[in-house]
């Protein structure tokens, strides 16, 4: 049990690292994409819409395989971890874009009109009027997406990244202690995601009072 602890700890760290990178990159893509859907010209809107609707209709695992095996075929060398992060970020970005679009679109038109009446520029409107209100509506859905991403990060083990799932799989293979180690992995994933959900709920309450 104890001799397996370092391997599992390293796996957990990789899971955290992959998830954090995906959420960061995915959120940047998603906010950009969401704004593109809302305020872009017709060609940009069409491109982003195509990206969002395509990525949401393809399984994450297929995206990971496509990038991991596909990039070297066109001469781009990527490590398994980078391929996984890239694929999941594209997937995450599509979801976040839709969340951002929905949240901003749900803010009453009067808010924009009032901000226009005050003479605020486009950037000022976004920063001081639209975004503070949108965040409250984005947050719950974003936390759900984050939980999904942490769960999906286990798929990188299928391109041989030694994350938490792969680490536990190796330990079970060696020790044959299935119940114990699968329970450990489940507990770690659960704690991670449950904490995140709780933090999200708390933040949501705080924002909605503001």
């Amino acid at each position, binding site marked *: 049990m104890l001799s397996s602890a370092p391997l599992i700890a390293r796996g957990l760290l990789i899971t955290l690292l992959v998830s954090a990178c995906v959420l960061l990159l995915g959120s940047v893509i998603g906010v950009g994409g969401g704004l593109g859907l809302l305020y872009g010209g017709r060609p940009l809107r069409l491109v982003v819409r195509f990206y969002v609707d395509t990525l949401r209709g393809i399984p994450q*695992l297929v995206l990971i395989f496509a990038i991991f095996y*596909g990039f070297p075929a066109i001469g781009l060398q990527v490590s398994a971890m980078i391929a996984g992060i890239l694929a999941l970020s594209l997937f995450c970005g599509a979801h976040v874009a839709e969340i951002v679009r929905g949240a901003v679109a749900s803010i009453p038109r009067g808010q924009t009109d009032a901000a226009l009446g005050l003479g605020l520029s486009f950037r000022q409107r976004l920063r001081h009027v639209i975004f503070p209100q949108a965040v409250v509506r984005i947050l719950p859905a974003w936390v759900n997406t984050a*939980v999904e991403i942490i769960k999906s990060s*286990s798929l990188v083990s299928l391109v041989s990244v030694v994350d938490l799932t792969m680490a536990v799989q190796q330990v*079970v293979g060696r020790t044959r202690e*299935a*119940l114990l180690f699968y329970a450990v992995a*489940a507990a770690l994933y659960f704690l991670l995601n449950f904490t995140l959900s709780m933090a999200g709920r708390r933040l949501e309450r705080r924002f909605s009072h503001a």
Partner: protein
Amino acid sequence: MYQFNWRPVFDNFDLLLKGLVLGIGIALVSLAIGSIIGLAAAFCRVHGARPLKFLAAAYVELVRNVPLLLIIYFVYFGLPLLGLSLFDNTWSFVLALSVYAGAYLAEVFRAGIEAVGKGQIEAARAIGLTRLQVARHVTIPLMFRVALPSLGNTFISLFKDTSVASAIAVPELTYGAIRINVNTWRVIEVYLVVGLMYLAACYAIAALLRQAEHRYRVMH
């Protein structure tokens, strides 16, 4: 420059087509089994006694916060190590996906049950229906109409999740892609075709579901 060669993909197209059909089949079976589990969990959570309530909540929260792949590994590798070798790889996956689906469907059904008005239930009780009859003839039919859109979305998610079955060599669509890729190394072609097949299937299912929703929508 990458040279496209579609031949190997289309020569093995039956592999992909069979995989697609198997994936949809697995998603359907898992949706059915998951609905039974989910329905039971939802009733326990809403109307059950305290320990039942807690158990149902624990099941839902645990499964929803753990990766599907881990559940698959537990069923496929873990159960035999514990002396339970009942299933081949496909049925192991169906079992794992059903348990996974059950947790999501429990929440879908719970929202549905809670949306059924108290007045409806009281009226049914007043005309002398037993609790079981109320559930069968009033709560469940009404709940299904409320739950239909979420049920449809869950089905599409489950279908996409069947791709993870390739991890334990279930011959579904993604596994077909892996096999063609290994034999012919036409990576780009295979994944373009497979991606399109998933996409087309998802949109076809969504279109069918919209029609069903339209037919069974709740009248206000």
